[in-house]
């Protein structure tokens, strides 16, 4: 084989990895990839669990509100049946090439059929039942599991589905491709978020001697360990399952695909399709964030008190000095210390930031829209 073929180059890359871990990682990847991602108690600190509950709560509230607005009492049995369906879907052993099987979460399918807000409720209910009655996933970890699998997965999957499918006809093959990509992207991003949850544990919680108290690996290990196996196996199962079922529904149950109201491009996330250019631009900007490392100095006007002194300012207001240490940002300076790699840290910060801002903006928009609707109703 010539020296410069792509294969050779990849071979060289792999060679640089510590060899003895390679077989282990391959085994771990195969094992992790075939299971769904339910975090048991003991991996996350109780404080993290509490924070995750706080993050999920608004989505549950918005889901319940949407349920009340759109379907009234009819929603109760619908959610119950869809949660039961999601539970049963998690039990499917999907045969994979190579002789193993995988499990799907079903969150992407639920989002495509029901819309993400209601899918969030249905998957959460399924997760609560799994934790309480079947011991699958921890009780304290319900918040974290719901955030990963009932918020990130359906919302990302729905946005991707909308963006790829656009305004195509309901039986267009493009919708099957969209479902495949949606399921894959949704679960992969969910595994990234889970990796971040695991990775911050040793940073924040350890004994005096430095032994981590909960999940032991730093971000540099936990993120690839979660994302790579999921991207290669579990997300493929999720995407494949979603695509197969959407293809089946196109043949046999087309009305189901129209239910979420998003199918014809009128859904709540249809805006993502319209603003596709903007999203692409945002992604390019995010990928380009490590360029910031090249620029020397601090952004104008964002100096810390120490820098102000260095710049020749002789008087620093006492209030500024005090307030400066009031809030320590979790990703101070947009660098993730333990990653050890500044560029990777920037990318991660950018991705997380965009995700958080998008979620907040969506939440705000939904609340405003709901308020306007209820005001409209009163005026009628």
């Amino acid at each position: 084989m010539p020296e410069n073929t792509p294969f050779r180059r990849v071979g060289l890359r792999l060679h640089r990895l510590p060899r003895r871990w390679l077989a282990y990682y391959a085994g771990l990847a195969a094992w992790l990839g075939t299971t769904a991602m339910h975090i048991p108690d003991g991996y996350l600190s109780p404080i993290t669990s509490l924070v995750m509950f706080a993050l999920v709560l608004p989505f549950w509230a918005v889901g319940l509100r949407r349920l009340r607005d759109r379907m009234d009492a009819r929603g109760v049995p619908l959610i119950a049946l869809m949660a039961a369906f999601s539970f049963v879907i998690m039990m499917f052993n999907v045969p994979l090439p190579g002789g193993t099987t995988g499990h799907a979460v079903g969150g992407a399918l639920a989002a495509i059929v029901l819309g993400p807000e209601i899918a969030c409720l249905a998957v959460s209910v399924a997760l609560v039942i799994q934790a309480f009655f079947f011991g699958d996933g921890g009780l304290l970890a319900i918040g974290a599991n719901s955030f990963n699998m009932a918020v990130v997965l359906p919302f990302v999957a729905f946005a991707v589905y909308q963006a790829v499918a656009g305004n195509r006809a309901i039986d267009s093959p493009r919708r099957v491709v969209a479902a495949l990509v949606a399921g894959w992207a949704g679960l992969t991003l969910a595994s990234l978020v889970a990796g971040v949850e695991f990775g911050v544990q040793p940073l924040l919680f350890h004994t005096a001697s430095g032994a981590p108290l909960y999940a032991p690996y730093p971000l540099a290990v936990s993120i690839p360990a979660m994302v790579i196996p999921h991207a290669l196996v579990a997300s493929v199962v999720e995407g494949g399952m979603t695509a197969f079922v959407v293809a089946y529904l196109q043949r046999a149950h087309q009305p189901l695909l129209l239910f979420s109201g998003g199918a014809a491009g009128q859904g709540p996330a249809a805006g993502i399709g319209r603003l596709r250019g903007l999203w692409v631009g945002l992604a390019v900007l995010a990928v380009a964030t490590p360029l910031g490392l090249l620029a020397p100095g601090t952004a104008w006007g964002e100096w810390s008190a120490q820098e102000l002194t260095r710049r020749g300012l002789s008087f620093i207001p006492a209030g500024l000095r005090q307030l400066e240490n009031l809030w320590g940002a979790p990703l101070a300076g947009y660098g993730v210390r333990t990653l050890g790699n500044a560029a990777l840290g920037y990318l991660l910060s950018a991705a997380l930031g965009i995700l958080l801002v998008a979620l907040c903006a969506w939440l705000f928009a939904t609340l405003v829209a709901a308020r306007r609707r209820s005001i409209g109703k009163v005026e009628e």
Partner: protein
Amino acid sequence: MSASPEAGVGRHSRRLGLEGTLAGLTHALDQSVFAEEVARRPGLLQGLDPRAKILATLALLITVGLSRQLPVIAGLYILALLLAAVSLIPMDFFLKRVWIFMPFFTGIIALPALFMTPGPELIALPFGWVVTRTGALTTLFLLARVSTSVSFGLLLVMTTRWNLLLKGLRVLLVPEGFILILGMTYRYLYLLLQTLEGMLLSRRSRIVGRLSRPEERRLLAASAGTLLGKSFLMSSEVYLAMQSRGFQGHTRVIDTFHMTIRDWLFLGGALAVSALAIGIGG
């Protein structure tokens, strides 16, 4: 980082496709019948108010989470074993459910931490592998915490009948509507499991020989799609049935619980143990 099949559903079966799914479904149904049977035994925990048990379990889980000393977590695990014994939960089942899967799941995840966590050397193995003291400590923390938490969760689930457990969730300020949805989900879950089992069984009985993998995938996807259609249809039928009985969207969970001296004593004891454990090792 993976599933928690320490106490998972049907994950013990690694059989493939159709057969594996069927085996998993049967196992889940078996398990729930067994859990219901244990919940009816005349043990200590079975006789307590579900609300006391839920609060006590939460307090103990949080304590396990907050403990920073291994002996404290070990003590809590022994407490869980004692409670299982006085609640007439078969000990072999209780131990197996936690420890058979632990080495495979949490174990395989925790193993590299033995070597990768920087710290002073504990044991030097051949080929330059070194187990560090901090690595051993963090691995033990993870294993102890996960096994103790799973045990306490199992105690609550195995000793409380599901309808009582659901009503008991009111004590955590869970809205009544949500409890109604949970209850309906649990009820229809079994119906869907049985429907799916019937669909797959009838299909299997018409097959001679083995299906190819693409055929199996297509069959499972079609089953999932059909099940989705059936769930939708059933939800509107259930709604009509509810409406014809006068359901207007308001729910009220009737609970006839009342806390007795025994319940208060148990809850007080659990909180005292939690406070003591956090005091020693928090």
